[in-house]
């Protein structure tokens, strides 16, 4: 096959993005949009999984990176694994959306179109091999999600969240772009490899010149811009409002996929492109990580809204992942990749339950979780598994990814820079701190009586997805974590070159 077939997922997505508005003109049945979106995402997922296990079908090799479109598009194990996650999350969102929105909810065609275009942006980010492609991918995804967040425009909170997200997103894009332009001015290149080679030469003395200040400033700008995407302190303020205000399926997309997209960008930029000038940004990233996990966990304790609490927990989780970046080793990076992946599952799984409760009209306050176990054992168990995973309690998957993360980072700390050990210890203590608010939900679900005696039946799509979450986080990942470790290690090596 031609290498351009590797581009098939994106092509299918674009085709589908054009089809859904077409369907809108042809048919009145709203289910067709959801069906079209589900079919598209399922086929892409199947394609990605088949090509993962049989790379020779696509005449590619796991060990070797493939380049498309004049080297602007890179296919390697790192990009493929994240693409699978993005499509999986998008499929989940698409599935729960049809039960979350009523049959007569207006503008469903636009909703699914935007969902697919947001996914397209993420896939582009996963494969981007230069700053412009990266920026374009982020913007495609972000513009779609601005509209998705404000999807229920009659709802004040949704509109407010959309406005906030748009303003802050635009601001952060501008910052990123300015940082990129500074780098371009210094290096004369936009591809990651080109910038990497220039900076490498600079640090080895092949290229002369003192660009330290410029590189420091540009890395600060890029960090600020991307920091908004992954919501780390001090660029986190939008996240609680948006997570609370957006329709829950959209929040699922933001928390599980959009966050991972931000991390891909961070990994590509800091762990690869700017790797040889790590002295410039290491400490800044370490401080951001420390502040992020501590403030995130502290702020989460007092939240009364599940969306806000999970948003702050997301901020804290981003902090954990960030500690691996200053460590600059394969092991630490594979831990970071593993935790980013597993985070998508556990946050996604938690928000699916939130969406389930929202869909049957139980509301979003923590009180609505009281007595959930009496209403549905399955949903309560799924939420429990996700939350214990987020804390990092064995034997759930979150423990394993967190272990890999701390393992790699601690190794780097012990063999070199001792201040990184402090980051690991802070991470470990923060995990214990976070236990408090996660346990609060678990206690509410199992130990309290429901606030209002209301018989509810949860949609079957939510129940099936919850069952899948339990199986994945509770059984499959813990049993086969050697494979997870190997894949992440390969991805880390592919990433760091």
């Amino acid at each position, binding site marked *: 096959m031609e290498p351009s077939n590797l581009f098939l997922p994106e092509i299918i997505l674009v085709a589908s993005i054009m089809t859904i508005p077409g369907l809108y003109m042809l048919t009145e049945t709203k289910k067709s949009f959801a069906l079209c979106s589900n079919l598209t995402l399922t086929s892409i997922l199947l394609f990605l999984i088949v090509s993962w296990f049989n790379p020779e079908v696509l005449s590619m090799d796991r060990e070797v990176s493939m380049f498309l479109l004049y080297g602007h598009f890179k296919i390697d194990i790192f990009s493929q694994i994240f693409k699978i996650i993005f499509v999986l999350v998008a499929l989940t969102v698409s599935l729960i959306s049809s039960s979350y929105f009523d049959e007569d909810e207006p503008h469903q065609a636009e909703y699914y179109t935007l969902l697919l275009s947001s996914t397209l942006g993420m896939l582009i980010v996963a494969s981007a091999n230069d700053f412009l492609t990266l920026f374009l991918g982020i913007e495609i995804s972000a513009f779609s999600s601005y509209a998705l967040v404000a999807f229920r425009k009659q709802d004040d909170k949704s509109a407010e969240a959309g406005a906030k997200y748009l303003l802050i997103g635009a601001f952060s894009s501008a910052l990123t772009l300015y940082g990129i332009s500074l780098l371009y001015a210094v290096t004369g290149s936009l591809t990651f490899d080109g910038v990497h080679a220039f900076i490498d030469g600079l640090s080895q003395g092949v290229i002369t010149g003192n660009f330290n200040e410029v590189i420091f400033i540009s890395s600060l700008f890029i960090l600020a811009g991307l920091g908004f995407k992954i919501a780390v302190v001090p660029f986190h303020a939008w996240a609680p409002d948006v997570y609370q205000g957006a329709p829950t399926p959209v929040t699922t997309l933001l928390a599980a996929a959009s966050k991972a997209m931000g991390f891909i960008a961070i990994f590509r930029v800091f762990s690869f492109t700017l790797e040889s000038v790590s002295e410039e940004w290491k400490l800044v990233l370490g401080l951001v990580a420390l502040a992020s996990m501590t403030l995130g966990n502290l702020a989460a304790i007092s939240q009364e809204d599940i969306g806000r609490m999970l948003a702050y927990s997301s901020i804290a989780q981003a902090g954990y992942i960030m500690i691996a970046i200053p460590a600059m080793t394969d092991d630490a990076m594979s831990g970071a990749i593993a935790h980013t992946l597993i985070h998508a599952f556990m946050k996604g799984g938690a928000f699916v339950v939130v969406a389930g409760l929202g869909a049957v009209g139980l509301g979003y306050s923590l009180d609505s979780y009281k007595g959930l176990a009496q209403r549905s054992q399955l949903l309560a168990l799924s939420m429990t598994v996700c939350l214990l995973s987020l804390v990092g*309690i*064995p034997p759930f998957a979150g*423990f394993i990814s967190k272990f890999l993360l701390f393992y790699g980072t601690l*190794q780097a700390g012990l063999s070199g820079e001792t201040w990184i050990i402090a980051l690991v210890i802070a991470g470990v203590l923060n995990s*214990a701190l976070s*236990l408090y608010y996660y*346990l609060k939900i678990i206690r509410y679900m199992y130990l309290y009586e429901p606030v209002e005696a209301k018989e509810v039946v949860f949609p079957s799509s939510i129940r099936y997805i919850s069952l899948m979450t339990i199986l994945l986080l509770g059984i499959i990942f813990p049993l086969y*974590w050697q494979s997870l*470790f190997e894949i992440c290690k390969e991805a880390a090596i592919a990433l760091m070159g």
Partner: protein
Amino acid sequence: MLFAMLVLFSGNVEAENHTVTVTQSDDFTSYFFDPNVLEVEVGDNVLFVWGNGSHNVAQVSDSESNNYESGFYSGNPQVGGNWPLPADFTAQDGTLYYVCEPHATMNMRGSIIVGSGSLPLPEISMEFSDFPWLSYLLVFPIIGALWSISFGNTPNAPRLIALFTTLFTLIISLIVFMKTGSKSGYSLMEEYEWAPNLGISVLLGVDGLSSPLILLTGIIGPLTVIFAWEEKERPGLFFSLLLIMQTALYGVFVTLDYFVFYIFWEIVLIPMFFLIAIWGGDDRRYASIKFFIYTFTASVIMLVGFMALYFESGANSFSMIDIANSSRELSINNEAFSENFQIWVFAALFIGFAVKIPSFPWHTWLPDAHVQAPTAGSILLAGVMLKMGLYGLIRAALPVLPLGAVYFVPVMVALAIISILYGAVLSLGQTDLKKLVAYSSVSHMGVALLGVATMTELGLAGAVFMMFAHGILSPAMFMIAGVLLHQVGTREIPKLGGLARHQPKTTGIFVVIFMGSLGLPGMAVFVAELAVFIAFFQSHGYWLLLPIFGMVITAGYHLWALQRAIFGTDSEEIEMSKVHEAPWYELYPMFTIIIIAAIFGIFPHYLMDPINTACYDILIFMGVL
């Protein structure tokens, strides 16, 4: 192996003969051996030849001591003649010190350095099993748990399944205990690969340290189930949580891999959290969350310690055996495991373990958890879960970090003594019987910690024996509290009184259990306390008076509680006409416990033999003995 070495040396190398002259100067001013330091190869012969004066040759323990203790001895002082050193004293590396008894104080001493001069490093023997006994221990309760939860809230099936499962695991535990015997090293080992790239495997094995605790877990299992026979609230979930708890506890005691150990260590928390939170008392929500957060915080610090051990050893393995071996090797060669490192990591591990023990000042979660937990939960908590802390300390911290452990001996002694006294004094002031037992646990586990802190064979063995004895008797104390609440309606000691007239059989059992718990000779706790106190006297002298004083208070609060609650005039506050004997499912477990406590109190060697072997091995391995 010794024999093989002998054959090897005598076969290849000609054994040399050395002579030491035992003599004095003609003017009686100096007494000496000539030469006074002799270096010989392994397998050489040494002949002592008498010169002037009346002397003998007697081995002493080191270059300072004067008295013949055991070892070689040429007999009473003699004049003239000669005496060959028995061949087995030069059969392995080591340094032999000896004196002439009459002239030891006049510095008539010498030494023989055999080979390298240091004792050969003992090896940990490992014996793999043909039959997966230990996996059965882990798997059966899980199957029982799934089976039991599938019955939901039907009253009969879950308890029968739980009883059947726990009896079955009790039998396997007994077999494991018998098969392990008092052999040195690990036996019944099994290994399953899990994540070989990281050096993580499910490595199972038992030795004399873990086999008593496996037996304890086995015994407590069916007793808990029988005692909770009439559990009405969600019995399916209740019994399956008990069984999951059992698997996790077995897991902690049989794994020899730091990572898997940690996993089981944490899994224990989850069923316990739900047991307290769903079936607990009025304040259960607070108690359960405090319990969880307290112990989780401590154990994540412990996990960082484990990872530090893993990286420092460089063995790319989480196996306790591998890490212990490389720790010893690297620290002898000064390559890694420096004293500084050992102190830091020991501190991290000690925090993790001390919270579980629980030792002062980390004991505050225990009274809350105990008082709020249902009786079955308290039984497991006090009976087995508290033992995890000390077990972890002895198993996971001592062999790898001997220098760190020795550095922390004063801290451990201080914490142990404070725990003993403080726990006892607080018990004295409690009115709630369950709280009294909870604080007495702090005090008793303080005794066990004191035993570990002596760093002697007897002390360590006493500590492990205490873990078993307390693990048997404190559940019985909690059962008493449960019985009182069921049959009389209150656990408040001042409200009780005169029960002995109305339930003579039940209170008779109460009295025996109280006596056992306060350390009456003939019951298991006494043996443990005696061993620990003798060892502590040997290592720290008259500091012993402090813990002994704690024992006086212990006797005091037990007897005082007994007198107020059981004897005396009939209480006004309870309706005596409604008080009658406890039902069979509450009496039988307590009676069984009395029998077991008496068996091991009268025949302690059944337990002491394996424990002694294991403790000796650990101390030898640490280089303390």
